[in-house]
């Protein structure tokens, strides 16, 4: 897909998203859609570091939670508008990515993954001990009302998340198709070789970590608006960290479309199972799906498609 086509599709999606609340009346689809889009942003952000550069961030919820609490803080302190919250969250996320990256990216992959877990617990402990942020009880965040143009707050926050998702995917795609993406792929394949080719690996990894952190934190910013209440358990939830890596895996980590596919698929399945299987078996279904994917399509949907294409090509070649 060329840049022009990509932009065209993105604009179409954005326009469709803006019109949707006028056509589709039932607000539930916007609640569910919000969650799916939120995961598109998270998975896309995660993939910039985890997929392109090959550094598994296990502590995605640290960045997500930082975004959530940045926004909650801004609502409580200044009743700041959503746009300000999103930008501030992205800034904090980038800063956090930079600091974590500086502390830990000099070390190899597995250590980095564990260090990010540590970050989650440290941030969660800080929030727990902060009375201003509500501690364990959380913070009720009655956000300013939605602009009149939107049918309701959910539709509004859905559209905001849609824009964020397009921005995130745009960033990921831009990186992927540029020299930055090429350097990150080189790092993923072999760091010493990349370094020997003149790639400033540490600087590139820091950049990827910061951008990735910024995008993930951005995904957390509208949460206070969406849920009207933030609490440390939701903001720093293990589920977010695990979904963030399961989704790109399911879709495929090599290209921007992979995390998008994975997020849409897994988040939809999760949304659907919770409201159709009204028992603990909804979790079981998700667990089985993850295992099935890893075993049957280890390179994700993209890998599967590539394999199929190759097979078809070979068959054509033989006949």
């Amino acid at each position: 897909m060329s840049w022009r086509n990509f932009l065209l599709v993105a604009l179409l999606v954005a326009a469709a998203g803006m019109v949707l609340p006028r056509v589709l009346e039932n607000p539930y689809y916007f609640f569910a859609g919000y969650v799916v889009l939120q995961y598109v942003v998270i998975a896309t952000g995660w993939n910039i570091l985890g997929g392109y550069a090959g550094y598994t961030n296990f502590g995605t919820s640290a960045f997500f939670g930082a975004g959530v609490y940045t926004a909650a803080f801004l609502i409580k302190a200044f009743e700041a508008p959503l746009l300000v919250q999103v930008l501030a969250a992205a800034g904090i996320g980038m800063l956090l990515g930079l600091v974590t990256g500086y502390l830990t990216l000099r070390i190899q992959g597995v250590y980095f993954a564990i260090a990010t877990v540590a970050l989650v617990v440290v941030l969660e402990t800080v929030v727990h001990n902060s009375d201003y942020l509500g501690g364990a009880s959380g913070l009720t965040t009655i956000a300013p009302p939605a602009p009149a143009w939107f049918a309701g707050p959910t539709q509004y926050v859905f559209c905001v998340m849609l824009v964020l998702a397009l921005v995130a995917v745009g960033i990921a795609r831009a990186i992927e198709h540029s020299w930055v993406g090429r350097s990150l792929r080189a790092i993923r394949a072999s760091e010493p070789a990349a370094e020997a080719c003149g790639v400033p690996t540490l600087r590139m990894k820091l950049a990827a970590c910061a951008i990735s952190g910024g995008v993930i934190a951005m995904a957390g910013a509208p949460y206070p608006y969406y849920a009207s209440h933030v609490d440390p358990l939701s903001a720093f939830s293990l589920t977010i960290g695990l979904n963030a890596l399961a989704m790109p895996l399911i879709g495929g980590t090599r290209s921007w479309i992979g995390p998008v596919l994975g997020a849409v698929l897994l988040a939809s399945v999760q949304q659907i199972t919770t409201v159709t299987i009204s028992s603990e078996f909804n979790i079981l279904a998700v667990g089985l799906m993850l295992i099935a994917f890893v075993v049957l399509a280890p390179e994700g949907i993209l890998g599967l498609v590539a394999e199929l294409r190759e097979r078809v090509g070979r068959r054509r070649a033989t006949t």
Partner: protein
Amino acid sequence: MSAIVEIRGVEKRFGAIRALGPVNLSLQPGERLGLIGPNGSGKTTLINCLSGLFAANAGTIVFEGRDITQEPAHVRARMGIARSFQIPRPFTGMSVIENLLVPMDYLPIEAGAREGRAMEILSSVGLAGRRDAPAEALSQLELRKLELARALVIEPKVLVADEAMAGLSEGEINDVLALLMRLNERGVAIIMIEHIMHAVMRFSQRVVCLETGRIIAEGLPQAVAQDKHVQKVYFGERAGR
């Protein structure tokens, strides 16, 4: 003629173990140097220190009159110190030509000229026909060639070939040797680390032998090969008999 590389008193320790040094070694521009020594003698450690993957614990490394001891590897690469790896490290997930574009991203080459330049290098190593093949699909020989091709992109002044011929057939060894010779004719100084003795001896103007991190012999290939000490540590009991 002043040396292009000056290694002075370089040491490398891992914890309590001293893997290298102190080592003093200089390389003349356009020289062909063979680096030999048994496994674990510190050859790769030495060139890791030279290329900047390891920070030396002591000593200085001077390149073209400039102290580069504190420079990170990517800076040294851009200055003209290229290397290949003992075990080929292709950039998987990319095509062959894209592998060569990675170093070019950091060189002042015009965007339009890059592909042509990359193809030139691919042709020179005989990989032109594989330009769009994924790196994963290459054979052992092709991987070795890609490794060298990638090193050539930065137009090195010094090239370190770390066992570039391991696992190749006799004919393929000759291919690679010829390739390195052509490069050297263009003025590139080459350090060859190799276990295949006849290749090193044929190729090198000067040979250095390392053992337990120190240089134990240095000189003309024949002289080093005859050295009692070298024979004992390197060729083992059989040669000593």
